[in-house]
């Protein structure tokens, strides 16, 4: 990676173009090297979708259920797979057979891997556009110390995106590309384009609904209302009706394009049931490090204490809860069980303050970006059946903020390091262990050192936060190097995942809290500083 400053070692003279180009090329080549690495069941998921979209008429896409991995992304993604399948044909037509479950010939692997790598071009372009939105404070610095360069490394070489897309296997790259591009367009005051891109994005993958509130409020407040009062509050009379209509038209147009055919076929309820499977549990098999992980852990602890002091009747405790972490359904023993509605309520409440701030004290695109991250993080914290991968939704946009202010850089370091570490259980195979550790170290060392050089005078993390982050090291050694060789491995196989999840949940909750406070205007920020 040219990040080593190496690439750009001499690049100082020739400007940022060469630096950016070598960064992008370097990371793409690294992705190619990861082709033979381990891939998860998501590989089969996407192969299956290729087969479904290729060999069945549109009307059956959302009904087909030969494989357990049914199509559960919005229509645009299905069309995307449909388009890919035409290229896949050239590589190996056998992968397009629905009955060929778990088919993975070398050519199939090559095609699938390269489809991710090539679609990432959109991500690279989006990063390039985002870098243009960052204002340069001081000219004449070395290229490698400029915020734009640092930002491009933080985004292009993001550890989470690399392992989730190019080892674990998913198509997040170009989707995040769409999101970053839409954010960049809002920064560039091209609101309609931004809204258009976001509408498309939503129809590719509905997880981006997490950040939709920020988009909605921001566009309404700062685009549909053209003027503010001198004190910054909204001037109701400046409401521009045709701007609202333009926005509405764009959103409706994109949605109609995507859902229209299925509405015509009267399949909307089927699609909705596929997209929002509330039958799955509160937490994924491996608990995403969020509020519910802490909640479950507390429940677990209370039940153990209860059993010890005979406050609870052992017969009443459901069996499954004893093997927590291994089964999807976690039944609470002491604390009340959580319903989907409760999680929705918690999520909305967590988002509300920042949404209010976005409405009453809009701070331009940066305020919007901050609100977007808070929304993403709040959904991650309190959402129903959240995957650990969803943390990327907060980490990537947060990179944009991190190169702006030292406080944000501190939150960013805390959030990314913890969030990335929480992705470790995704790769549990031995050959990939060195890769994940090395890549993680690479990214962490770079992000810390570059942000420290960027904000020379400021202290980014206080001592508690530093100790917390250093603690991740021993935690990793215990969980993956020591624990497997102890006799407890067979009796309590879930302990490493449990520890990882809870430890990371603490850090991410803290980061969410600090970020939410930073959203509040004026004195509150001062208070946050005092703490």
């Amino acid at each position, binding site marked *: 990676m040219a990040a080593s400053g190496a690439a750009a070692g001499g690049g100082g003279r020739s400007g940022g173009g060469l630096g950016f180009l070598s960064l992008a090329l*370097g990371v793409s080549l690294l992705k190619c090297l990861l082709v033979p690495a381990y891939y998860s069941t998501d590989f089969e998921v996407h192969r299956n979708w290729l087969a479904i979209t290729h060999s069945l008429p549109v009307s059956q896409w959302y009904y087909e259920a030969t494989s357990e991995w049914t199509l559960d992304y919005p229509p645009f993604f299905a069309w995307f797979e449909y388009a890919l399948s035409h290229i896949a044909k050239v590589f190996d037509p056998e992968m397009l057979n629905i009955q060929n479950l778990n088919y993975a010939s070398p050519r199939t692997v090559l095609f699938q891997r390269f489809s991710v790598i090539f679609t990432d071009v959109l991500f690279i372009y989006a990063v390039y556009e985002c870098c243009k939105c960052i204002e340069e404070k001081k000219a004449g610095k070395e290229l490698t110390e400029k915020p734009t360069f640092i930002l491009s490394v933080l985004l292009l070489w993001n550890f989470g995106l690399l392992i989730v897309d190019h080892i674990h296997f998913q198509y997040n790259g170009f989707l995040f590309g769409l999101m970053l591009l839409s954010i960049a367009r809002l920064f560039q005051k091209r609101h309609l384009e931004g809204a258009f891109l976001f509408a498309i994005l939503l129809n590719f993958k509905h997880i981006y609904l997490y950040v939709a509130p920020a988009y909605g409020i921001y566009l309404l407040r700062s685009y549909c209302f053209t003027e503010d009062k001198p004190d910054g509050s909204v001037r109701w009379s400046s409401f521009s009706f045709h701007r609202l209509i333009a926005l509405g038209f764009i959103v409706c147009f994109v949605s109609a394009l995507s859902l229209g055919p299925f509405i015509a076929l009267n399949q909307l309820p089927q699609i909705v049931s596929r997209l929002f499977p509330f039958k799955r549990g509160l937490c994924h098999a491996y608990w995403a490090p969020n509020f519910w992980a802490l909640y479950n852990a507390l429940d677990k602890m209370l039940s153990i204490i209860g059993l010890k002091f005979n406050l609870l009747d052992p017969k009443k405790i459901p069996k499954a809860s004893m093997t927590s972490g291994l089964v999807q359904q976690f039944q609470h023993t002491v604390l009340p069980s959580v319903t989907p509605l409760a999680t929705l309520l918690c999520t909305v409440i967590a988002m509300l303050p920042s949404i209010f701030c976005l409405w009453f004290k809009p701070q331009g695109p940066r305020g919007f970006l901050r609100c977007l991250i808070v929304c993403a993080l709040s959904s991650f914290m309190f959402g129903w059946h959240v995957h650990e991968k969803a943390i990327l939704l907060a980490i990537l946009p947060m990179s944009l903020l991190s190169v702006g202010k030292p406080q944000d850089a501190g939150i960013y370091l805390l959030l990314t390091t913890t969030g990335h570490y929480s992705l470790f259980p995704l790769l549990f195979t*031995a050959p990939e262990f060195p890769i994940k550790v090395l890549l993680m170290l690479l990214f962490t060392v770079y992000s810390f050192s570059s942000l420290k050089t960027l904000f020379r005078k400021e202290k980014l993390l206080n001592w508690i936060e530093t100790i917390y982050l250093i603690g991740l090291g021993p935690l990793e050694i215990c969980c993956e190097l020591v624990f497997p060789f102890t006799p407890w491995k067979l009796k309590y196989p879930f302990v490493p995942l449990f520890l990882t999840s809870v430890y990371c949940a603490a850090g991410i909750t803290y980061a969410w809290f600090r970020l939410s406070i930073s959203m509040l205007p004026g004195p509150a920020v001062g208070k946050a500083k005092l703490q």
Partner: protein
Amino acid sequence: MKEWPSMTVAVLVGLTVRWAVSLNSYSGAGKPPMFGDYEAQRHWQEITFNLPVKQWYFNSSDNNLQYWGLDYPPLTAYHSLLCAYVAEFINPDWIALHTSRGYESDQHKLFMRSTVLIADLMIYVPAVVLYCCYLKETSTKKKIASAFCILLYPGLLLIDYGHFQYNCVSLGFALWAVLGVSHDWDVPGSLAFCLAINYKQMELYHSLPFFCFLLGKCLKKGLKGKGLLLLIKLMATVVATFALCWLPFCTQGEQTLQVLRRLFPVGRGIFEDKVANFWCSLNVLLKIKSRLSSHTQLMLSFALTLLSLLPACVKLTLQPSLRRFRHSLVACALSFFLFSFQVHEKSILLVSLPVCLILNEVPFMSTWFLIVSTFSMLPLLLKDQLALASVVTTLGFSVACVASFLIFENVSEEELQLKAFSMYVRRHVPGFKIPAKMLKTWFAVSMMTMSLLSLGSITMEPPRRLPDLFPVLVCLVSCLHFLFFLIYFNVLILWDHRNGRNQKKVS
């Protein structure tokens, strides 16, 4: 050092790429009965662990020398023994006598790959980092850039982590030796170099420059005073190191002779397989291998090697300097590779290591050479199913070099260090100029040829009448390049850049 985070990042990238390459297949994977170098290394663990030292190099019912018999010096054998102890601890099946032949499993692959990584981490990587940190007359950025590029050199990466060998050990020791000798720690330096030779006899390619440089140093200090003392110290070091390494084999003359016979298999002909050296390329035109007797071949190659070595060695002995020492390492190793007897395609790594060391001095030519050297091993790498990894790492290395050294902006007489040479020629041929612009065109043409040949080798079936068409073409093209580089590096040695600068000041 202020820039340690950047250095850490550079090293981490190098390590990541190394491990990513090791996810690929290895030589002879799933190809009984002989398998490949991977099996050879495993077999050596089996032999050294189960047989007494006396039998390691001898043919016996337990040690069939036809099946990957040990043919490296004792240090390699000791290393195998050490690995064997670890293997025994993890899974004794891996090294069970006889029954473990051709053992392959994912776990075993992981074990073997990690032994390479550990050896690399302990010997080669620190040497590279230290070497770059102590570069003289270089900015910190350039130091880091050099370390970054050296660690990404695809040839070594692909052979060690793809094909499977432990070149990082012998090359690492050689690098430690260079490091020692160039900072006047001559005794530790020669110790490290003896270890390198005792790990792989191919390190003898580097021995002459070391010898000449150290001898020159002694001569410079005066053979009657300090120089003599140094000479005695060095001789003692060398003898002691060799004696220690060969201790178990020194007890009987027959033992020593047998090891030597294993190390230098003179009977195997002037070359095997396709190698990008002079003889193999010449063989395409004149079938020397079948026309000349084995003895004539040996004499011819000896004479030609000596002849090509001579100028650099004489110059280095008479005027020892660090710069000339590094250049002689390249030139001598290249001479050996091109003209000596029984050369393997992997031996080009011995030339690449010193070229890596001058990467920051003459970036354009070094990068060019390093790319060609990787290309010359293409047939071997394709056999091991490393096509994707080779292409990707070579491209990555090129990107790294172009971005960190801006090689295309630095193609001038001065940057190529040919000022002294061209001034010399101008005295006889007025108006002579180094065609620097033309060099860029050549570079482009050479890259195009190599890309096309690579593409052809990977994607096309050769015509039935010429099954070896692509390997032979690869060898020919690489050999032509190497001859050109041999001339260039000899010119660098004979017309030192420094003299040029001095003359300029005088005039």
